[in-house]
């Protein structure tokens, strides 16, 4: 403790703390190696009033869509390398391609492309909070519409 009474030693110690903190800040903002992308494919329709219990955590997100029934058709997750691309099969001959673009300010930029029988339906780039999601919906399917929940978690 006596060593700490010396201003020169205090300066050394806090410079070390500063360097370590700067290192931690740098590490925190470093791009992740992988992004875990989860796609949940949901069929929304008005035939029944059933709500799939597997979608319990999404009730509040689906509520504004005003459909009567929601059913989880498929859930798939893949670890996508940063700057890499992965495709997810979506019912109805569709495919969703996801490519993480950057990680900044705890948000992940995802480039997303939906195709239907090889033809592009939508190309979009969305920045989502780490561990957050967004919803892409509307393509007609099996008497209802498809709702895709696209979430990403930096690894």
């Amino acid at each position, binding site marked *: 403790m006596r060593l700490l*009474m010396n*201003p020169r030693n*205090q*300066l050394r*110690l*806090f*410079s070390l*703390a*500063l360097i370590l*903190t*700067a290192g*931690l*800040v740098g590490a*925190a*903002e470093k791009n992740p190696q992988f992004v875990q992308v989860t796609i949940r494919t949901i069929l*929304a*329709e*008005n*035939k029944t009033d059933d709500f799939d219990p597997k979608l319990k955590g999404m009730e*509040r*997100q689906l*509520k*504004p*869509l*005003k*459909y009567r029934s929601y059913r989880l058709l498929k859930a798939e997750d893949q670890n996508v390398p940063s700057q890499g691309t992965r495709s997810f099969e979506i019912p109805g001959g569709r495919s969703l391609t996801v490519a993480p673009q950057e990680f900044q*300010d*705890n*948000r992940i*930029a995802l480039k997303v492309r939906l195709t239907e029988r090889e033809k*592009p*339906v*939508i*190309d*979009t*780039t*969305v*920045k*989502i*909070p*780490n*561990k*957050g*999601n*967004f*919803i*892409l*919906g*509307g*393509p*007609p399917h099996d*008497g*209802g*519409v498809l709702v895709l929940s696209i979430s990403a978690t930096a690894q």
Partner: protein
Amino acid sequence: MRDCESIRESIGRWLDGELDTAESESIRAHLASCEECRKAQQQLESIDQILKTTLLAEAQQIEFLPFWRGVQVRIAQKTPWHEQALEGLRATFTLSRAAWLVPAGIAVVLAILSLDSYIPGLREGRNSFASVESIDAYGRNVALLRENESKTTVIWLYEDQEEENATADEPAKSAPAF
């Protein structure tokens, strides 16, 4: 050989024992051969003697016992922790010791800036919506919804209402219902 003036300047320090051996020897040798300087030495010795005698006489009249008791009480007295802490703080924040404040301040700012990277959800509510940077629906209609309650961003693709009416057997409409 040193001159008398410089010897006389050094006599006082010689009498107080502040000179090294060589200088003391030089002064002693000079005094043995110089009457004037020896007189100066004797004068200084007599002043010293008078001063010593006076001090001793005065000191006998001073009551030292209460003074020593006070010192002993203060030594034995334990300083309360809050006074020690206050003293420590005062010592730490004196200008000469406050050099660490600048790097410490920077470290605190950096730590605050990086907090949300380490505490999940800290930034929620301030920036928890997904934001659409670009969108190309290849001529299709697109609606964007940002729902505040669940902090959800929805991109909704839909056909023209007229086209949709033409397919009357479609039970669920794909046009946005929100």
